[in-house]
């Protein structure tokens, strides 16, 4: 029996296409019947889409240096691991998270302290006088936890991929294409500068108005392909103005 409580934690994985066939089918089946979960899924999808539209954030140089230092330390620690642990980690992905010996020792100490504390508390509770209608000593005597002093959660700063890595190259793709379109626009504008000396004032005004209109469209367009489409439109208009100036200007720049 699937319930909203069991489905909603899986929605993110479902929207990311990360659920296996049978699990995906269960979620999909539930979404068909449950309007509340559908709404949650829609909100989640909208949020993801919104996040994708955000411009990439360049972390400060100091942060990146820190990340690199931590990575280097992790690699050193990895190299110091015994051979058998590296071999196990290669075949069992979660094994790479196995604690080191000092970590195990520290963990044991913490666990021992926790057990000691619980034992002591239980002993104290058993010593307290019981009340007739008390459902349980723990429920009676356990003070309500104070609302924790809220520490602002650390802002998740996306870690910049290594500049040599495929991910960094992929992130740079749209900007590269946009820059290529920009370069062509600049070349055509330079060509237009020399061509328009022979145009009348009216023709120059029509040209400027058309270019301004198309540049505004570029500014409005979303980054990436929509912006490149708008740049393509300006390139075409500039080509026509240069090559077929009379046709373009006679029609107000629309053809």
């Amino acid at each position, binding site marked *: 029996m699937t319930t909203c409580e069991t489905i909603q934690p899986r929605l993110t994985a*479902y929207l*990311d*296409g*990360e*659920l*296996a*066939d049978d699990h*995906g*089918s269960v*979620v*999909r089946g539930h979404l068909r019947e449950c309007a509340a979960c559908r709404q949650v899924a829609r909100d989640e999808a909208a949020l993801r889409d919104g996040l994708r539209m955000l411009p990439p954030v360049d972390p400060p140089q100091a942060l990146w240096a820190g*990340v690199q230092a931590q*990575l280097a330390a*992790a690699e050193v620690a990895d190299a110091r691991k015994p051979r058998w642990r590296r*071999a196990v980690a*290669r*075949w069992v*992905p979660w094994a790479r998270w196995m604690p080191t010996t000092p970590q195990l020792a520290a963990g044991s100490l913490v666990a021992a302290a926790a057990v000691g504390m619980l034992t002591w508390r239980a002993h104290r509770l058993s010593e307290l006088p019981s009340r007739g209608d008390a459902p349980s000593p723990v429920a009676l005597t356990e003070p309500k936890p104070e609302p924790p002093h809220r520490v602002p959660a650390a802002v998740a700063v996306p*870690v910049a*991929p*290594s500049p*040599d*890595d*495929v*991910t*960094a*190259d*992929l992130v740079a*793709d749209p900007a*590269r*294409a946009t820059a*290529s*379109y920009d370069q*062509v626009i600049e*070349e*055509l504008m330079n*060509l237009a500068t020399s061509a328009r000396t022979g145009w009348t004032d009216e023709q120059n005004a029509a040209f400027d108005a058309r270019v301004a209109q198309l540049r505004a469209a570029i500014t409005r367009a979303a980054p990436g*392909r929509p912006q*490149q*489409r708008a740049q*393509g439109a300006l*390139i*075409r208009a500039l*080509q*026509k103005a*240069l*090559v*077929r100036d009379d*046709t373009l200007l006679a029609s107000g720049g629309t053809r």
Partner: protein
Amino acid sequence: MSAIRRGWPAAVTAAMPVVAVVGLVALITGERPAAAEPTRGSAPPPGSMRRATPVPVSAAPGATAPSSERSRLSIEPAGHAITRLSIENPLGDVKVEGYDGTAIQIETHKFAPDDDALDRLHISLVPNPDGTVMIKTTADGGKEARPVARRAVRIDLVIRAPRDARVEAAVGSGTLEVINMDAGGDLDTASGPISVRNVQGEVLTHSVSGMTRLAQVFGSVDAQTLSSDVDLDTIGGERLFASVHHGRIEGRRVRARDVELTTTDGQIVLEAEAALRGHLVVSSLLGDVDVQLRRHGAVVVRARGTKVDLGAAARTQPNGWVEAAIGPADNAAVVETALVEIRAAQGNVKFAIIESRP
């Protein structure tokens, strides 16, 4: 064999049949121990999809020899027919081939320098209730990931799709090929070549520097590249617009009512058939223009260029245009006259008529 087994501890002997069965299953399915996660390789979509087994071709664990993995998927339409295919593969080639079925069959081929890098390559696949199937490839970058150069990894997709699905695809430097489709497409590459063959419906192509080749396209075409050639062969539709900044446009067997070919710096060579009342505009700022026209009715040609050869009795107008009227000049013919305008602002213009056979 039995003599050897006798020498082993009882626990090992007892475990042998289990190990043998697991090993056999792994051998048949081709699953690697590390690829046991259901989402590994090709992510299963929330749709009625059959996931075929990935077939890894990898080196021994720990070795740094190149790895690759093939897998096949099939997505059956759930409720609605699949009407749109949206593909984004910045990591390799995409080939989409139409067929007379209803399912989408996807073959993926991943390449990487080693198994760890191979595991970073992902293909997500999301069928939407509106009939759209979205396929996207990515390379993830965990903090543990060792840098891998883009040229060292690759994902190629070969997709068989229902003919009547529209294709919207974008690749980076890989090849983008679409064949045998009936609902056109919107295709985008950075430096990869675009090839479209035997496609009906409106086709839009955009490329920064990828050679664009369109053949047997029966629908309106709009092709734009910044610095590469455009090759057109057997194009028949209402409109054909193509523009190139640095590069050449070559067209053969072009028959569209409204044709506009433009280059800033590149030759244009066109062999076209003039449609009745058609309008053909071929222009280049710095390149030469060579047009051969097959005509069925009257044609009026006007051209400007450094040197203009219209191949017929032509008059030079006071405004610099060279004009020629070819074919019958009665009233009926004037109504159906095709107009040809050729501009080569700083190049030569050459025009010739190919008379149709009676």
